[in-house]
């Protein structure tokens, strides 16, 4: 298969081809947006039910001009990212502890097994009672949700490190501490990154949901405010904004992954042997 794909193409042609492919991937989104605009203008639905895309974009533009968009986006991103980083660090540390200590595994394994599939949002009322309705309770909810995939990925990643890799390092004189930092963690990194890539959009989702439920600033809060004032353009503007922010976050994370895992099979252009 590889032999057929790898017919050498001149660089200009290759760039053109990859640009076209990148463009082609956006066709479905463009079609969806066009359909939205056409349906909204056709009169089948009222502007209250479905405001036109152009009206929504205008609203976003006005929000951006007034500074509301920047405030709401940064508030939501702040909560999502703080929660994500705590979940990332805490999750990796907890996962490492579970991999290395039988006691930690004995204690946390059942908690992870029960907690992972559970809808953590059920704890929201409790968290509100304990911590109030401000940043701290929202971030707590984000950490609570996002830490599970990180712990699970870290445990699986460390279990999957080849015995021969550890033995080679010990053969070359690596002690326990060096094994952990220089061998086990780098070897586990691809799978840990996968866990982080699950945790990141989860952090944004929980940030928006908690904002919707608790109110206040943020993209989710702004949407609920717009909804309360029956401002459907504002609601749809929020949906578009969240979609763009989420997409940007996921793309940034994928970029970081490629940078960190430059050595990994997936980053090479040619097929594995």
């Amino acid at each position: 298969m590889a032999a057929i794909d790898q017919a050498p193409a001149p660089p200009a042609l290759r760039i053109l081809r990859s640009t076209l492919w990148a463009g082609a991937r956006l066709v479905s989104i463009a079609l969806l947006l066009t359909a939205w605009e056409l349906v909204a203008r056709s009169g089948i639905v009222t502007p209250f039910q479905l405001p036109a895309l152009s009206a929504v974009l205008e609203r976003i533009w006005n929000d951006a001009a007034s500074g509301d968009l920047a405030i709401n986006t940064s508030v939501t991103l702040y909560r999502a990212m703080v929660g994500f980083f705590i979940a990332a660090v805490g999750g990796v540390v907890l996962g490492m502890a579970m991999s290395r200590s039988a006691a930690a595994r004995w204690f946390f394994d059942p908690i992870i097994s029960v907690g992972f599939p559970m809808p953590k949002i059920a704890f929201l009322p409790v968290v509100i009672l304990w911590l109030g309705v401000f940043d701290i309770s929202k971030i707590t909810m984000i950490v609570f949700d996002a830490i599970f995939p990180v712990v699970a990925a870290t445990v699986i990643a460390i279990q999957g490190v080849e015995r021969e890799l550890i033995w080679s390092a010990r053969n070359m004189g690596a002690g326990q501490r060096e094994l952990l930092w220089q061998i086990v963690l780098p070897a586990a990194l691809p799978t840990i990154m996968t866990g982080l890539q699950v945790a990141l959009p989860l952090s944004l989702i929980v940030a928006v949901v908690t904002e919707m439920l608790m109110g206040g600033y943020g993209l989710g809060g702004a949407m609920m405010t717009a909804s309360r004032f029956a401002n459907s353009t504002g609601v749809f503007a929020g949906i578009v904004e969240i979609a763009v922010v989420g997409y940007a976050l996921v793309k940034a994370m994928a970029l970081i992954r490629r940078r960190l895992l430059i050595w990994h099979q997936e980053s090479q252009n040619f097929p594995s042997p």
Partner: protein
Amino acid sequence: MASAAQIIIDRVNHLYRPPRGREVLALDQVSLEVANREFVALLGPSGCGKSTLLYLIGGFLPVETGAILIDGEKVAGPGPDRGIVFQHFALFPWKTVRGNILYGLERQGMPKEEREKRAMDFIELVGLHGFEDSYPSQLSGGMKQRTAIARTLAFGPDILLMDEPFGALDAQTRALMQSELLRIWQRTPKTVIFVTHDVQEAVYLADRVAVMSARPGRIKTIVDTKFDKNDPDILKAKAFVEKVDEIWHLVREEAIKAQGKRA
């Protein structure tokens, strides 16, 4: 024991304990002596415990009964006096060829300039010049194993433990790597214990071939296989072919026994 043996394996038993199910006797009263700079092949059917024996010598698995002595000292764990090369290379995929080779030298605390030079010397020795900044995922199987051999030789072990090192390579690369290994071995003489299930490979490379029995692994016979390694036509020589045939029959019996036990 006044012999000049560098490695003494004295009545070693090994129990393999699977996570589930009953324990299995993998090695049964294995004794073997290997002289300094000798090349010994461990040959036997799969599952006979030859790799296990190698891991015990390497100190990666604990010796529970019997003893393994290196230069008179009991093996109590891995050490840089014994370097291992694995079938699946076990390279650090996040390090380049150079980085892999440097790792052991860094652990030894060798000064930067010296270790850089030493790494390049060994890259040169295994014929990987120009690939020092490649990652393992960019290399072919043969090049990966060259890197692994260079990495192990670079930290200067007296004893080289090789666990089916060419088992994952295609036939042509394998033949090439065998003569390369001999060339390197002649330039940097070391004691080598080489695990394989390829009879011709064992006879070609080794001074002595230890044929192991089917599980539980015992040393069944030790056959002298000293041939002129520099003779380009050695593989076709009558004495060589007869030796391969002789050993092949010994191994075949054991392979059949192993099959029978499994069935």
